[in-house]
C-alpha cells in the first residue's frame, strides 16, 4: 500500500488534534483529499470551502481561522516545508509527511511550534 503520514496540530489550547498516522495514498489524491480522509477516519469535524485549486481549510475540530487573532489560520507542510501551493492542487508522493499546523500569528513572526507540544 502506498501511504503518507498526516498529523494535525492545533494551538496551545487544543494541543495535538491528530497524532501522526498513515493514510492510504490513492491515485490522484491531493493533500486536501488526504486530510479529509484522515479526519473522517478519526471522526473529527472540519470546515472547508472551495475545491480544487480554491480549496481552503477554515477550521479543524472546532479550531477556526481568526480564533487566535486576525492572522491566525491553518497551514500545511510537506516534509517540513511550506509549499505555498493550495492544498487542493498539490499531489504528494508516497512516504511524504504532511503536517497541518495552526498558526496563531503570521508565519513571518512565529515561533517554531512543531508537531505536538
Amino acid at each position, binding site marked *: 500500500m502506498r501511504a503518507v503520514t498526516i498529523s494535525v496540530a492545533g494551538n496551545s489550547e487544543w494541543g495535538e488534534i491528530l497524532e501522526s498516522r498513515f493514510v492510504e495514498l490513492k491515485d490522484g489524491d491531493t493533500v486536501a483529499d488526504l486530510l*479529509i480522509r484522515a*479526519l*473522517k477516519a478519526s*471522526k*473529527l*469535524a*472540519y*470546515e472547508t470551502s472551495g475545491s480544487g485549486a480554491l480549496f481552503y481549510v477554515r*477550521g479543524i*475540530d*472546532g*479550531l*477556526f481561522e481568526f480564533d487566535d487573532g486576525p492572522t491566525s489560520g491553518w497551514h500545511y507542510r510537506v516534509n517540513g516545508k511550506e509549499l505555498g501551493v493550495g492544498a487542493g492542487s498539490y499531489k504528494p508522493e508516497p512516504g511524504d509527511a504532511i503536517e497541518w499546523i495552526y498558526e496563531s500569528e503570521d508565519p513571518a513572526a512565529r515561533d517554531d511550534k512543531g508537531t505536538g507540544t
Partner: protein
Amino acid sequence: MSEGFGARALHPVVLLVYYAGGITFGMLLFHPVILLAGWAAALAVNFHLDRGRSWRSWSLPMAGGVLLLLVLNPLISHRGRTVWFYLGDTPITLESVAYGATMALSLSFLLTLFISYRLLMTEHKFLFLFARVSPKFALLVMMAAGLIPRLRRRMYELMRIQRMRGVTVSEGTVLERARSGARLVASLLAWTLEDALQTADSMQARGYGTGPRSAYLHFRFRIRDVVTICGLLAASGAIFALWAGGGGVLEIYPRLGSLALSGADRAAMLIYAAFLLMPLIWEWRDRSKWQALRSAA
C-alpha cells in the same frame, strides 16, 4: 375577557417592561431546556388570552422556520468538536445541531411572545408610550392610520373608473401599463395633496401650532400594575445575576457541554418562567371572580 380585565388591563409601561425583559432574556439565556420552558410559558399566555387562535395561524410558518434552522445550521456550520455523522464529506457536529435547535427554540419563543404582544399591546397603549417619547410622531402615526384606508379606497375607486377608459395596469403592453400606473399614482398624489391643504386648514382652525400640546390618551397606574412591575423587576434582577454568573447558558462551542441543568440553570429557568407567566396571575384572578359571580347568581 375584554380590555379592563385580566392581562389586558395592564398599564402600557408594565407591558413594556414585560416584553423588554422577555425578549432580552430570551436572547441571553441560550439554553434549549430553558428556552423550551419559556416557550411553554409564552404559549400558556397566548392560550389564556385568546385560546391560542392567533398563535395557530402562525404555527405553520413557525414550524417551518424551526425545521429550517434545525436542518440548515448543521449543514452550514461545522464549528463543533463532536462529530455525529458524515453526510458525504460534510461533518454534522452535535454542537451545530444543538445550536440550531436552540436558535430554533429561541425563534419560536420570540415569535410566540410577539403574538401575545399584539394581543396585549393595543394601538392605543402603543401610541401612549410613543407619545411620551415623541408626541409629534404619535400624532403622525394617528394621522397616517386615518389616511391610509382613505387613500386605499380612493385608489381603488380611481383604478376602477379609469379602467373603463383604458388607463389601467391590467391591459396593454408593458410600457403602456407602466405609463398608466404612473398616471394613476400621480393623479392620486396630486389629489391627496390638495386634500391635505384642507386638512391643514382644519388642523389650524382648531388651534394646532398655538402652543405645546397635551395628551388626551392616558392610562392610570393601578395597584396591579405596581405589583406586577415590582415582580417583574425583582425577577429580572435575579435572572440577570444568575446569567452574569454564568448560569442559564448552555456551552455549545467549541465542545458541547452537558445538557444537565446546574443549580443556577434550574433557578434561572424557574424564575424566567415565573416572569413570563406573571400576566396570567390577573387572568386567573379575574376569571375566578367571573366564575364566582356566575355561580352565585
